[in-house]
């Protein structure tokens, strides 16, 4: 029977608010939201327990002999007899241990849609045990698309298991909620307000003091340097939700890294930003600060980091920038390159040349930095000729096998409120179903099945050539099979 260390209340203490992550998120590192919101609650004059319950469930389930059956519940709400008692105990204990803190408010953070079944049952258990407790749900997992709406949250509210749904930047909305301003944008409303740059810079540092760090596979702290994006990619719905690019200063980010390292002894940071180098001036300054720090201290105290990164056209500064990136302690950079065909990349809105890719990769290799290239297969104008170009590129770049991790995903999905969706007809696309991947481009013979086969072919070639791919990613694999078998 699982007992949650992170919820243990041995001194019978009381907290006004308890905020927890809800399973299932496949993460070996902490999820940030509760830690981010804890100081907000305290600024509103309340006490708060904020912790990462998902981490303990993930750790427990990973060691469980029936882990596959547990995952069937978390993903699809399918209950096998051999895990039903474990799952009942899991949610009952979770709810009981949360309520042992005698909170007035419980916040459930849903990182992805895979948390929805668990959050539903947890909220039900909470309300059964204490009908007076106020339950709030929030996080991207409440919605099927970035821009919403959340029918899921509405259903839970209508059922009486959840009282409020807070969406978007939760820091100011939660603060206003706790101050009894429950009409504030983002509280039970589709509309919400982005934090301004000044507000974002005034957000207190995340408080991980109630995270149970022994749980994690890797000692890493999440950190946020920016929200939004500097690019306007045609397929992207993230920018439809976060319309403005807001960033923190390099000094501010660096100070947080140093303070968190001193507090928790954790020297590895994972940036949650959609891109770490959106503001190049601040990014260079941050890498300078980190480089100075790392070069002035002993190896065991050097800071490390990873995050998303964008390639730009190369110039005279590129070599120095990569040196700084290396000295700053980077380990992995995930680069949304989207497509190895330059003309497609330009159409998407990522205007850097293939020559620039080669230059960036050569520097990354020189400094031993791992690059995860994130690709989209089957852009709206992509043809067999473009796929052959990608294959040729892979054959002619095998010198980067040790540098690259190739990600091909589940082919292009067209999501609400993106440029692609707004220009549907002009692009000559035909919707064939409700799924984001359910579209064709009759003019060039692009169909879901064809695109899925392209993705599988490229993955196969990658493996044959010796590249590392993450094609064992279950979601992508599952989706490709659905597309090929014409069930999407």
């Amino acid at each position, binding site marked *: 029977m699982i007992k949650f260390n992170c919820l243990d209340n041995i001194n019978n203490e009381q907290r006004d608010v308890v905020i927890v992550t809800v399973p299932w998120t496949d993460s070996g590192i902490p999820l940030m939201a509760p830690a981010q919101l804890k100081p907000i609650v305290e600024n509103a004059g309340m006490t708060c327990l904020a912790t990462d319950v998902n981490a303990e469930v993930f750790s427990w389930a990973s060691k469980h002999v029936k882990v596959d059956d547990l995952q069937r519940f978390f993903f699809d709400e399918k209950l096998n007899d051999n895990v*039903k008692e474990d799952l009942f105990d899991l949610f009952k204990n979770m709810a009981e241990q949360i309520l042992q803190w005698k909170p007035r408010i419980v916040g459930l953070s849903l990182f992805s849609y895979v948390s929805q079944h668990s959050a539903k049952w947890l909220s039900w258990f909470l309300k059964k045990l204490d009908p007076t407790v106020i339950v709030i749900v929030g996080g991207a997992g409440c919605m099927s698309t970035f821009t919403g709406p959340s029918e899921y949250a509405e259903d839970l509210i209508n059922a*009486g298991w959840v009282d409020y749904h807070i969406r978007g930047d939760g820091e100011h909305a939660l603060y206003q909620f706790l101050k009894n301003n429950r009409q504030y944008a983002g509280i039970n409303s589709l509309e919400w307000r982005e934090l301004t740059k000044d507000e974002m810079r005034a957000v207190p540092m995340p408080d991980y003091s109630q995270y149970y760090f022994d749980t994690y596979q890797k000692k890493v702290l999440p950190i946020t340097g920016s929200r939004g994006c500097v690019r306007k990619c045609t397929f992207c719905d993230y920018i439809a939700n976060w319309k403005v690019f807001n960033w923190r200063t390099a000094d501010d980010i660096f100070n947080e890294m140093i303070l968190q390292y001193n507090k928790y002894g954790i020297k590895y940071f994972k940036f949650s930003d959609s891109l770490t180098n959106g503001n190049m001036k601040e990014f260079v300054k941050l890498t300078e600060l980190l480089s100075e720090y790392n070069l002035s201290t002993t190896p065991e105290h050097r800071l490390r980091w990873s995050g998303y990164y964008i390639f730009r056209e190369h110039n005279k500064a590129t070599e120095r920038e990569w040196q700084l990136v290396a000295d700053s302690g980077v380990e992995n950079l995930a680069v949304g390159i989207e497509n190895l065909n330059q003309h497609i990349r330009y159409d998407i809105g990522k205007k850097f040349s293939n020559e620039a890719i080669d230059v960036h990769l050569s520097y990354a290799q020189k400094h031993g930095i791992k690059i995860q290239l994130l690709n989209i297969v089957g852009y709206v104008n992509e043809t067999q000729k473009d796929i052959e170009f990608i294959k040729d590129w892979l054959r002619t770049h095998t010198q980067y096998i040790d540098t690259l991790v190739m990600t091909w995903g589940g082919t292009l999905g067209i999501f609400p409120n993106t440029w692609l969706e707004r220009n549907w007809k002009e692009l000559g696309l035909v919707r064939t179903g409700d799924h984001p991947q359910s579209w064709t481009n009759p003019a060039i013979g692009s169909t879901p099945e064809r695109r899925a086969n392209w993705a599988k072919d490229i993955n196969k070639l990658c493996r044959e050539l010796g590249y590392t791919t993450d094609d064992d990613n279950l979601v992508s694999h599952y989706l490709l099979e659905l597309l090929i078998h014409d069930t999407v």
Partner: protein
Amino acid sequence: MNLTVNDEVLNPVDNYVLFEKNIQLPEKLSIKTSGKIDGKDTKVDTDGNIVEDMYIQIENISLDDFPLNEIYLHQRINLLTEKGETNTSNYIGFNGTVNLDFVEENVFAQVLTLNN
């Protein structure tokens, strides 16, 4: 057509009735229909098509506000008719008995088992 649940007679108002009961799992509910007369309460046209029928339709079954899903409603409800035949449907057009067996010990397991 008469309707009872665990021998409690239900009297529809405007052809609709809601039955609510506190139960302690595991529990069995027995729905009985009676009083429908063959040849009178079902009307057919000259081609043999049913044009009017007396029936009871189960629209929804919920345990603690968790609705059992469409698959359960349409594929798991078995009516044992007075003639000894079994009809699987939420459309009860014969006199007979439907037994709803809630065999689990808690709502969590019961809802998910029935909805799977």
